[in-house]
């Protein structure tokens, strides 16, 4: 694939691979599961071409722990999976967060719980933004809604990850992974000045040894001190990183709150609603953690109501209620189990809640 800026047709899963490689990702470990299979498939072909290492691990658990190791050496690294596989990775993700190791984890969500099905879903929202594994930790969670945005955010994810020394999750879904769209493969440019990796394990000849660990037994308050440090870091991230998009919110009475694929479909519904004279807008968080609470609060001051659309039985709605401090009614439209809304479905719900 040439590096020239020119649009090419790629599936979402392939877009992540090209973005990761352009951003200098040189280690990938993963395990097959639909609907993310094109990520490892494409990586297995492309990674050797750029001189990196691709491993099809024996399991998701092995893959995420390989990421722990690769990241500790300072290598930009990535793993991907779909919902059940991401559940398997949670222990490792908790360890990586504890060790403050940068990496990118892609979840191409499918229907759950359990093996569920292989259709698209947003049912892993809580798992992604509330921690997922054990202990007090946070992932930076990014939710792209188009393939050009997926490309850009995957590149940026490596920067956020290195800058904050924190794992970053790309929270997509089966539709985003499987659909094909033209994407311009823009050259990677760091979005922040990246700090020197003065913590990596690369052989201690001529310098003091370093330790990357997740076990804090002595002194007895060492874990509390470590966790306070993590808390401070999460507060810093929350104060610096708020990514969101607003669409036709200037005069809107009803705010649709949606992320990823559903936000994209909601845009079509909003156009239909506007044609009928209804003042509807969209607030689309791009970072799900941290969430752009101030944008929600600002719109809650002028709009009369929020409508949350999600491919789930209702998860994101809880954070919308928190972000708006329950100052306006928040309605929900969604189903779990591998369903997606059509613009007409959403319009119907808009018409129902708009007049109430």
């Amino acid at each position, binding site marked *: 694939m040439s590096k020239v800026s020119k649009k090419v047709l790629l599936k979402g899963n392939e877009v992540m691979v090209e973005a990761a490689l352009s951003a200098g990702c040189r280690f990938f470990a993963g395990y097959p599961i639909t609907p993310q299979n094109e990520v490892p498939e494409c990586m297995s072909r492309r990674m050797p071409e750029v001189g990196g290492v691709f491993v099809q691990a024996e399991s998701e658990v092995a893959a995420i722990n390989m990421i722990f190791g690769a990241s500790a050496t300072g290598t930009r690294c990535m793993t991907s999976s779909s919902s059940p596989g991401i559940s398997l990775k949670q222990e490792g993700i908790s360890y990586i967060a504890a060790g403050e190791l940068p990496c990118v984890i892609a979840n191409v969500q499918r229907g759950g719980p359990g093996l569920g099905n292989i259709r698209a879903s947003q049912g892993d929202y809580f798992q992604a933004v509330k921690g997922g594994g054990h202990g007090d930790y946070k992932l930076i969670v990014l939710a792209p809604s188009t393939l050009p945005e997926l490309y850009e955010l995957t590149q940026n994810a490596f920067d956020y990850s290195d800058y904050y020394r924190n794992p970053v999750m790309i929270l997509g879904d089966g539709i985003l992974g499987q659909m094909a*769209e033209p994407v311009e493969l823009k050259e990677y440019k760091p979005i922040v000045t990246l700090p020197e990796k003065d913590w990596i394990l690369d052989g201690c000849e001529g310098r003091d040894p370093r330790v990357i660990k997740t076990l804090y037994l002595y002194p007895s308050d060492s874990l509390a001190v470590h966790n306070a440090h993590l808390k401070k870091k999460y507060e810093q991230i929350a104060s610096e990183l708020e990514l969101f998009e607003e669409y036709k919110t200037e005069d809107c009475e009803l705010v649709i709150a949606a992320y990823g694929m559903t936000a994209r479909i909601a845009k079509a519904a909003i*156009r239909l609603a506007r044609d009928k004279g209804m003042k509807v807008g969209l607030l689309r968080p791009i970072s799900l953690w941290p969430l752009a609470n101030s944008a929600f609060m600002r719109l809650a001051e002028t709009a009369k109501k929020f409508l949350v659309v999600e491919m789930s039985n209702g998860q994101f709605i809880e954070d919308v209620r928190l972000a708006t401090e329950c100052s306006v009614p928040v309605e929900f439209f969604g189903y779990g189990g591998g369903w997606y809304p*059509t613009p007409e479905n959403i319009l119907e719900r808009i018409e129902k809640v708009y007049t109430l």
Partner: protein
Amino acid sequence: MASKQAKIVIAGFGGQGIVLAGNIIARACVKEDKHVAGMVSYGAEMRGGTANATVIVSDEEIASPFVEKPNMAIILNQPSLDKFEDRIVSGGLVVVNSTLVMRDVVRKDIEVVKVDALEIAKWLGNARVANVVALGAFISKTGILKMESIASAIEDLFARKKAALIAINKKALQEGMKVASRLES
């Protein structure tokens, strides 16, 4: 908004080149700098099972990538006609592979283009290019893309591993085109 978008479904047996036909259309769109969103049915599909691909072609940004109600269809076998006939919007167009679709299209409010795609493909020497014969007829009838872009997309797709098949696919495209233009007169 809807009138400016071509919402295409391509359906048939797994193995008939449904995904390939969708891919050719989508790549041709990129060449003409049009907005395009493609989806294929994925998962428990197999040779002989049913498969479908959808492509939205638009001059504007595409919001939802799904095609619930296509306004254009390429139907390569009878089960696919049974499945999609009712979904096509009124005034839409369907290209039917009449070699394998034995019944008539019941709807009177859609334009039907019957092409003996499999027979033509066999006559050309490769039964597997029936999809491209149908595609040729489709592009000729709808005019949504330039034939050169389609031909160029075929070249790109086959160049790496199957360059020997470029010629027969281009021939299939032309035959489909010819058949469709004959139907017009």
